[in-house]
């Protein structure tokens, strides 16, 4: 329990210090806003259209593959911790586990979904 107290303190102090720094900038900096200054910067030319552009679906694919392997890692971490005390059968289980998921990666690859088109 007390270990999470320290983590909580780290989070609190980690928030206070950047807020303090930005606050100092807010206090000491000049504040003379005007529409030109606040306009969106696009290399000097006038901004055209909305910032909400259509993204390509490749971003979703990479996040998707990441999600699957992230969850896989969650299962493998307890396995890795205990591996030293377990016999060969645990290694075989891990190999099966990873191999099944690598099949998914290969499928995605073969479908051409890992290409950045």
């Amino acid at each position: 329990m007390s270990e999470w107290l320290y983590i909580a303190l780290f989070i609190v102090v980690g928030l206070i210090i950047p807020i303090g720094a930005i606050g100092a900038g807010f206090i000491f900096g000049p504040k003379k806003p005007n529409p030109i200054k606040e306009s969106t910067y696009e290399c000097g030319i006038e901004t055209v259209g909305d910032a909400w552009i259509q993204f390509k679906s490749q971003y979703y694919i990479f996040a998707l593959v990441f999600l699957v392997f992230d969850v896989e890692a969650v299962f493998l971490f307890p396995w890795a911790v205990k591996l030293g005390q377990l016999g060969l059968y645990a290694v075989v289980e891990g190999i099966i586990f990873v191999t099944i998921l690598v099949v998914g990666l290969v499928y995605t690859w073969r479908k051409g979904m890992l290409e950045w088109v």
Partner: protein
Amino acid sequence: MTAQQIIFMIVAAYTLGSALMVVTTRNLVHAALWLVSTLFGVAVAYALLNANFIAVVQVVVYIGAIAILFIFAVMLTRKDMRDSGPQMNRNWWAGAIVAVLVFAGLAFLLSGWSGFQNTAAELPAEFDAISLLGEALTSPQAFVLPFEVASVLLLAALVGAVYVAFNPTKK
């Protein structure tokens, strides 16, 4: 009230408040960010339950991956930043009644259960939950089958999602 109870109250109020924002905010990216806030509150609740591993995994999986996936999906399915039309359907009051009834029903059922007011025993000294979890996940007497089936489930999800989202027949 002990310090732990006060902390729990604050965490629960924060989490439920964020959850209400998730279901009522109009802007979907804001709703996803409120979801992150809710999930963080749930992670703190796990930490209060001494489930270190689950608490960290909550942050890694939900905030690190699922929330990102949601934000990407919102970006991919919207053409403009403005929110047009109502975000809730006409029968929102019926939904609210159903939700309140479900909560009341759950509360009623649970309060009738004998173990409702249980308190937790102290954790044994030198208690190593991760080691036990690793053993449980790999032992043939315990959960090795769910462990491998989870892998198959993730494979099915990956293949299915790739196939559904990007079916080459439609151009």
